[in-house]
């Protein structure tokens, strides 16, 4: 469904990603792991289109989207969430989600008709909120939500655009145990409907969710395969997993 062919990016003299080739199959949860600074977020940016690749290609559903702008990629069904929460903080939760729904339903170059009259937008937004377990928070200003709720909204904004594939950049970042558990459940529920490329540091979550795992070290994919294979891979252990999996 998503194919990365030889993607590279360097910032000045720093090489962030080099010759990354990766396949994400339809319907799978594909986890991308790697130590800090391995280039995971850069790679997500290259796929989403916010970072222009120096070389290589991005194919989505067989179509080369390398030259497309970020918003055009979203229209094709490729949405993302951010590692650092990026929501409309001063707007209520419901409006955050309604905007996301609006982005994927018809043109927004409409200057006359009040949005408030578009029941369908808000109905769908409420549906997503229910999915996130945030039905009780619809009219809360989103910056006033708890951190875990904001992280859920972050993922929800991506989901509300009805993507075919969603790029989740560390959705568990900063979450407590209980919140993490809920996020894992959310991703599990969602994964039945959309393909997921998941960047995550929480190894429990990764091994619970992922159908396949790719390991990025120093901008290179060093291993890619089923969770058992990755767990058993000596190179991965050395480079990244270290003692975490020894137990």
């Amino acid at each position: 469904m998503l194919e990365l062919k030889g993607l590279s990016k360097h910032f000045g003299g720093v090489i962030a990603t080099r010759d990354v080739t990766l396949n994400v199959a339809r319907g799978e949860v594909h986890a991308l792991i790697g130590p800090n600074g391995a280039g995971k977020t850069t790679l997500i940016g290259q796929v989403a289109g916010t970072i222009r690749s120096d070389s290589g290609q991005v194919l989505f559903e067989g179509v080369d989207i390398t030259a497309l702008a970020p918003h055009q990629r979203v229209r094709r069904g490729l949405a993302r969430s951010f590692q650092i929460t990026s929501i409309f903080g001063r707007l209520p939760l419901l409006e955050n989600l309604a905007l996301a729904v609006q982005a994927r339903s018809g043109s927004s170059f409409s200057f006359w008709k009040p949005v408030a009259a578009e029941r369908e937008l808000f109905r769908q937004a409420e549906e997503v909120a229910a999915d996130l377990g945030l039905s009780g928070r619809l009219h809360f200003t989103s910056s006033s939500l708890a951190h875990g709720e904001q992280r859920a909204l972050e993922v929800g904004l991506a989901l509300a655009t009805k993507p075919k594939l969603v790029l989740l950049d560390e959705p568990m970042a900063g979450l407590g145990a209980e919140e993490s558990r809920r996020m894992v459940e959310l991703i599990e529920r969602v994964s039945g409907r959309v393909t997921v490329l998941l960047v995550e540091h929480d190894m429990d979550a990764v091994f619970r969710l992922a159908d396949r795992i790719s390991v990025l070290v120093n901008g290179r994919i060093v291993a890619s395969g089923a969770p058992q294979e990755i767990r058993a891979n000596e190179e991965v252990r050395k480079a990244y997993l270290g003692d975490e999996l020894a137990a």
Partner: protein
Amino acid sequence: MRKHLALLAVFLLLPLALAWADQTFYISLASRILIYALAATSLNLVLGYGGMISFGHAAFVGTGAYVASILFVEGVTSAWIAWPAALAAAALAALLIGAVSLRTRGAYFIMITLAFAQMMFYLLNSMKMYGGDEGLTLPRRPDLGVDLGNEVAFYYVVLFFLALTLYLLYRLTNSRFGRVIVAIRENEQRAQALGFPVYRYRLACFVIAGAAGGLAGALLAAHGKYVSPNVLHWTQSGTLMIMVILGGVGRLWGGVLGAVALLGLEHLIADYPVGWLEALAPNYQQHADLAVGLVLLAVVLFAPHGIAGLFPGAKRARA
């Protein structure tokens, strides 16, 4: 809605009240204030709702003023042609200036919009054919079908355009487009990640505001029967910005309240000498800006949402 109609009623009845009080001179001043209110309202769309700190809005007001005036001296005396032409020319200017400026962010955007307006200012200064730095004096106001030479008629024409603009702004800010504009202001990165082509929305907003600014310019030239490059001077852009900040950034009535407050204040200071102040500083009346500065300071410190934010139940329109 009731609040809006009440404010409209005040403006509708104003000429009658002034006639009753035998102060008809003020009708012309009121027209001028409403024209500035229209210009400030158009800037508020860009600045307040769109979050784009444009420091060159006078360029569009000036374009409208010049296009209408040049058409007049070239023999096109009908407002039915001149005003739409002014509006269209200002929209075009906004399209060109916006297309370049909106590729920049932050301080660069402020500077580049300022630079464009100043470039037009100097261009018109050297345009000897149409008065150069001395400007262009018109023999009378344009033809509309009603006698615009009549101050009361002119006032109502201006009020019509202001009310229309406010209504359109009200519709726009509650529409899909308006929501997107506010969303981009709140979080550009996220708006883009949701699939909105940010640049295109910003440009559309910039052009709509420029067009409305051009209309204000055409009215301004008709009002004074005069236009000079000074309408494009950067201090004019600054004045419009002050009006928006004073009145309420991103508030429907912000531009109107700011224009009324600022021009009203200037007028009060210039026309009503205060004895003890005059004894202290004999020429203080020529320095109305000082008072304006103090009021602006007070507003920024004590009423961060502007005058519009002081009204009970005033809700920040779509934000």
